[in-house]
């Protein structure tokens, strides 16, 4: 193992880590605000992939323009799901919310399989490569990193500098108190769920610009999102980016030291250990 090999692995890890980060962000936000583990997160990521793919390949829309549309659709879908389903179970034991979101997952997955089959799709989109010394970086991956940073920044600004964002944080902090202060918690929760699914859809859309995918592809990002959530602090959407980067780098570097198939074993053991030792996440975060 030489230096350039390590460097390549590190950079590759960071690039995938950014993607993991944005994929986990929505899940983390929803958990933080309403204590709901959204088991439909993965399939919404997959819908985001199909959204960008379909706009691009059938309408010839630029994928990043398509991404905007997909984001808006994701927001609407989230608000819709909130009012139809989540609002009714949000005060029920957490098992209800788990199973409710899981049934949404089943419904979307069933419809998706009927509509798209499980044939892998590939957008075939490319922005060329950038060569930097020993590194070969794809344009699409760099843009994805950029978009993620922009989205994270925007989310940060939204949560900390705007009124609805502050409301969201107030509701996350103490829903009963926020309601007493006259914050319309129902609408704020709907907005949070909408933003959560929007982030999932954006993540999916970005992934579609460089990876092949099927309707089932969201699952793997959902699972990684759990790990990332625990790494970065469950409920802390901004920690998700950091958690994603850590996971990405681990996945990039670990295979240099061990057989590749052992990496997921390490990953999940690490997940359990962190949960046991510090359930609020390696990087702290609100409890």
């Amino acid at each position, binding site marked *: 193992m030489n230096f350039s090999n390590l460097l390549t692995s590190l950079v590759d890890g960071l690039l995938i880590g950014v993607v993991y980060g944005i994929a986990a962000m929505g899940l983390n936000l929803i958990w933080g605000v309403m204590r709901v583990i959204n088991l439909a997160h993965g399939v919404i990521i997959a819908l985001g992939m199909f959204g960008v793919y379909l706009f691009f390949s059938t309408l010839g829309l630029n994928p990043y323009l398509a991404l905007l549309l997909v984001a808006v659709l994701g927001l609407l879908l989230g608000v819709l799901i909130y009012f139809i389903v989540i609002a009714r179970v949000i005060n029920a034991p*957490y*098992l209800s919310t*788990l199973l409710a979101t899981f*049934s949404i997952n089943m419904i979307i997955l069933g419809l998706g399989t009927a509509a798209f089959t499980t044939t892998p799709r590939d957008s075939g989109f490319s922005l060329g490569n950038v060569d930097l010394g020993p590194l070969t970086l794809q344009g699409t991956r760099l843009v994805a990193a950029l978009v993620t940073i922009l989205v994270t920044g925007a989310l940060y600004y939204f949560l900390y500098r705007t009124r609805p964002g502050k409301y969201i944080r107030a509701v996350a902090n103490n829903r009963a108190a926020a309601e007493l202060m006259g914050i319309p918690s129902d609408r704020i929760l709907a907005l949070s769920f909408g933003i959560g699914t929007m982030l999932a859809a954006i993540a999916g859309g970005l992934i579609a610009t460089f990876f092949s995918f099927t309707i089932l592809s969201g699952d793997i990002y959902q*699972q990684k999102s759990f790990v990332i959530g625990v790494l970065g602090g469950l409920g802390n959407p901004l920690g998700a980016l950091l958690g994603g980067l850590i996971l990405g780098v681990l996945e990039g570097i670990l295979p240099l030291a061990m057989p590749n198939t052992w990496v*997921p074993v390490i990953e999940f053991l690490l997940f359990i250990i962190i949960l*046991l030792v510090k359930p609020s996440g390696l990087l702290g975060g609100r409890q």
Partner: protein
Amino acid sequence: MRKIWLNPGFWLVLAIVVALGAWPIFQQDAAARETGFTVLLAIVMASSLNIVMGYTGYVSFGHVVFYGIGGYIGMYFIDSLGLPLPVAVLFGGLSSALLAFLLGKAILRLRGAYFALATIGVNEAARTFVANFQPFGAATGIELQFSVYKAYGGALQALWLVYYGVVGIAIFSVIFSYYIKTSKFGLGLMTIREDEDAAEVIGIVTPNAKTWAYVLSAILPGMLGVLFFFKNGNVEPGDAFRLGFSIESLVMIMLGGQGTVLGPVLGALGYQRLRGTLLTSDLMIGSLPLKDFQLVISGFLMLLIILFIPSGLVGWLRQRFATLRRVLA
């Protein structure tokens, strides 16, 4: 009051399971036997998970781990050591119990959604570990020679034998489930479910109680795993640790009513028959066969139940008709 045999609720649930199990035997009908196998398997998975989820209030997404580990250990014993099936089944159950004991010591400290998340981690860690574990064949899994069935009088007899095993385990599982529910230990578990901190103050040794609940819920799935994979002739990591199977077990419990003895039984029966019917249905929706939409239909039904009768069928009946409580355990 506390005597099991005087309670009609006990007889009702027992009779349902006995009848379900006996039907294919009286008919000597192989298709009924296979259907029965699927249903009874689901009943045992749901009933045993109910001990942790319904009685103790800990939602586990990792129940299938016990099924998978038991299955693997049993298959390993049959394939590599040539042990007879009943011994392998026992070992399967014991090794699952041991795993549950060790796991329980570690992760049962976590509460609520954190525990649920940890069990997902456990499932994935187990699957990826076994996929690398050479003695269990790593990714290739363990395959049995067709000739192993000869020792049991050929494949036909072996399939019946496995079926009798499952019937026995299923009957045992509901008696067991009922017994725990009406025992002092069960009362302690339900206290933990209602309020774990209060339970400690009352004097319930919660770490032990939870661990034992976990262990007791793990034994029967471990035994079932051996029977199932023996019957199929092979085991692979993906089949043994299928997260979806755990989730289906949760769904069955929700359908029937968590924390009741009858609920998981009816939930498992209903769910499996519904899926089975949808999968083999010839009905068409427009130009598309209904079976293409079985996932959508199942998801939709489940959503309706969660939104409108969250305590499940049995729970709902018990709430609506207080007089039925004695009958619906």
